[in-house]
Structure formats: structure tokens, C-alpha cells
């Protein structure tokens, strides 16, 4: 169950990642269709995800930030208290009730449709990198909807990075052949900057990667 909304947009919000969201992330980070480039170790079972959640997502030091992308309530039907595909699996999948305002708001939240992160922050330059993975488990998962969610999620995340974390430069990388994601990046305000030749090893071959960037001076906000 996503935590409270951290940054709100028109169609999606960014919400904190809570422990019982691990099952959603486990699918996202393992499914060949969606697993992100940030999973350096490869496959991740529930224990590895839990460790990642505790050590990376929940790290008290460091500047990385991770969020779930959650459609604005009313966009989708509110989720059942347990949003896990396999109810009863993992910790807290049943949505244990402890009361409190945060928990009431979380109950009303629709299921997450994706995950974004801000990492690699370098100071004093104020440079950081963002990634975005969208994969609704139900509801509309057409390419248009996925791109729309991704664009707004990235806008929210970049806005957070520049307006709250005082970053000067935010980068995002996309395989040169991933036209859809490159268009999302450009619609979210990024400029394609340069091509890194044979930078990533994907499906058995080295592929070019395009580095996109947006500078604080260019960021108009939303």
C-alpha cells in the first residue's frame, strides 16, 4: 500500500514506498517487460527486495529518493486494502490496521502504476539522475496511458529535484532505440544531449544510450 502522497499532480501523485509495496516492486523489478536498468544484481527475490527496501529505499543518510506513482484518487477505482497480487504473501500484505490519519488516506489510494527514483546526486554540482518505470497491473495500460503517467511522474520528480533538493542539472538515460521513452523525456522537459555509444549491454549486444538533461535554469515548473 503506497504511503501518503508526497507530491501531487493532476493525474498522478508520487507517494512513499511502504513495506507492503515490495510485492508490486518485485514484479516491476523482475518482469522482463519492465525490469529497470537499475537492478544491477539481476533477479531479486523477496528477501533481496526487503534488503533493498531497508538499505536503499529507507536509508536515513544519502540523498536518493524513491516514490511510487499512484493515480489520483478518482482516476481509478480505489484499491482493496490489500493491493498485492498474491494476498498473504510477504509482510504486511493484508494491510494491517493500526489506525491513524496516514493509514486512512492510504486506504483510499488507488493501486500504484509505477516507480520513480532520484539517485546519483553529486554535490556541489547539484547533479542527479532519474529513472521511471510504469506498468499498471490493471486498468488502462495502453502505450498512451503509460506515456502519460510517465510524463507526469517525471515532471513531478524533476520538480521535486529542482525545487526542493536544489539540483541544478537532472539527467535521464534511454536506449537510443526506445523511441517511446525518449519522447516521454522530451515531453517532460528534457533535452537530448549526446549519444553514449555502446554504453549498455541489452539482450546480448551493446546498444547506444542517449543522455537527456534538464537544467534548473530551463525548468519552468508546472
Amino acid at each position: 500500500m503506497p504511503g501518503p502522497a508526497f507530491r501531487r499532480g493532476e493525474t498522478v501523485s508520487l507517494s512513499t514506498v511502504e513495506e507492503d509495496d515490495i510485492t508490486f516492486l518485485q514484479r516491476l523489478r523482475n518482469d522482463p517487460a519492465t525490469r529497470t536498468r537499475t537492478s544491477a544484481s539481476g533477479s531479486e527475490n523477496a528477501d533481496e527486495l526487503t534488503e533493498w527496501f531497508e538499505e536503499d529505499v529507507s536509508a536515513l543518510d544519502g540523498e536518493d529518493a524513491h516514490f511510487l506513482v499512484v493515480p489520483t484518487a478518482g482516476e481509478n477505482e480505489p484499491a482493496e486494502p490489500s493491493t498485492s497480487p498474491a494476498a498473504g504473501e510477504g509482510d504486511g500484505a493484508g494491510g494491517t490496521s493500526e489506525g491513524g490519519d496516514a493509514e486512512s488516506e492510504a486506504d483510499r489510494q488507488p493501486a500504484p502504476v509505477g516507480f520513480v527514483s532520484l539517485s546519483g546526486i553529486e554535490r556541489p554540482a547539484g547533479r542527479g539522475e532519474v529513472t521511471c518505470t510504469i506498468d499498471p497491473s490493471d486498468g488502462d495500460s495502453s502505450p498512451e496511458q503509460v506515456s502519460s503517467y510517465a510524463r507526469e511522474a517525471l515532471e513531478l520528480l524533476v520538480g521535486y529535484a529542482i525545487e526542493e533538493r536544489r539540483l541544478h542539472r537532472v539527467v535521464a538515460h534511454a536506449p537510443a532505440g526506445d523511441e517511446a521513452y525518449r519522447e516521454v523525456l522530451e515531453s517532460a522537459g528534457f533535452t537530448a544531449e549526446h549519444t553514449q555509444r555502446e554504453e549498455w549491454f541489452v539482450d546480448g549486444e551493446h546498444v547506444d544510450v542517449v543522455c537527456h538533461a534538464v537544467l534548473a535554469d530551463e525548468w519552468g515548473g508546472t
Partner: protein
Amino acid sequence: MPGPVFLGGDEVTLRPVEEADLPFLQRHRNDPAIRAGLTTAEPQNGYEAQQAHERHTGDDSGVGLLIVPRDGGSPDADPVGTVVLFDVDESNGTGELAAWVTPDEQGKGYATAGTRLVLRHAFEERRLHKVVARALVSNAPSRAILEKLGMTEEGIQREEKFVDGEHHDVVRYSLLRREWGGA
């Protein structure tokens, strides 16, 4: 005193850092002329000075070495700089390198020789596919070294580093294993 030779060439050898070398590193890292290369001072030499274990987390299995000239053949010659391979990504087969040489030892080819040895190590021992290196766009001497070694200018990272009170563009170079001529 540098430890045993790790990589050897005609002009320089590269040795791992020993505890006794830390004062040398500390003194020159604090030298405004070469301090932290791209990140806190405009470099006068070399292209970037970062120790991998200080800056980069995650799967960073690189190497940091001292450059020791072979002049006169003394095995106990003092180091003149460092060269570092860092941000090694084994799944992609990529790594980045950086080096610096103290101002009074520049112009003698030490950075070029040391970098060449690390490139050979990266391609022939570490089986990397691609090595990158970066420099401030304004750092002509460092860029000349990278170009002399056959690296290709790949692109400009706008306002990537903050030096002397303002942001500066960085130029990224790369070399692929099939372009590595050896020697």
C-alpha cells in the same frame, strides 16, 4: 613508499597505495591546483582526481594506483600522481578513468603513460568493452592527453561540474575495446 608494481611500462610503473603514501595524497589533494579535479577546483593538470571508494558507491570494483616514474631506474622513486579506474559496471562492461600529476612533474608524459597502462589493464585484463574519461571543456591539456591516447569525444554534459563559483560544461571521451591498439 609505494607498494609492489601492479602495472609496469617503460616510462612509469603503477603501484597500489600504501598507508605511507597517504600524506602524499593528502598534500596534493589539498593543493588548489589539483584538488579534486573537476569537482572543487579547476584542474591545472590531469583530468580528474577522485578515489573510487570515496566517491562512488555500489558495484564499483575499480582500482586506484600511484604513478611512479622509472627515471634512473630507482625502484623507490617517489610517486608523481595517481590514476584511477572507477564506476566499473561489469554487466555493461564499462568503466571510467581519471588521473592527476603534481604541477611540478607535469609535461613529462607521466599522465599519458599511466593512463595508457590503465587502459591496457581495463581492456586486456578486466575485459571491459568501453572506457570513458571526462574533462572540463576548458581543460585543454587534459583533453590533449585523452585525444593522444585515441579516445573519441562523445558529447558535452552541460553545466555538469561546479568550479570557482560557477557551473562548467564537461566533455566526455570514450574508447571501445576494438579501438584499443595496445602498446
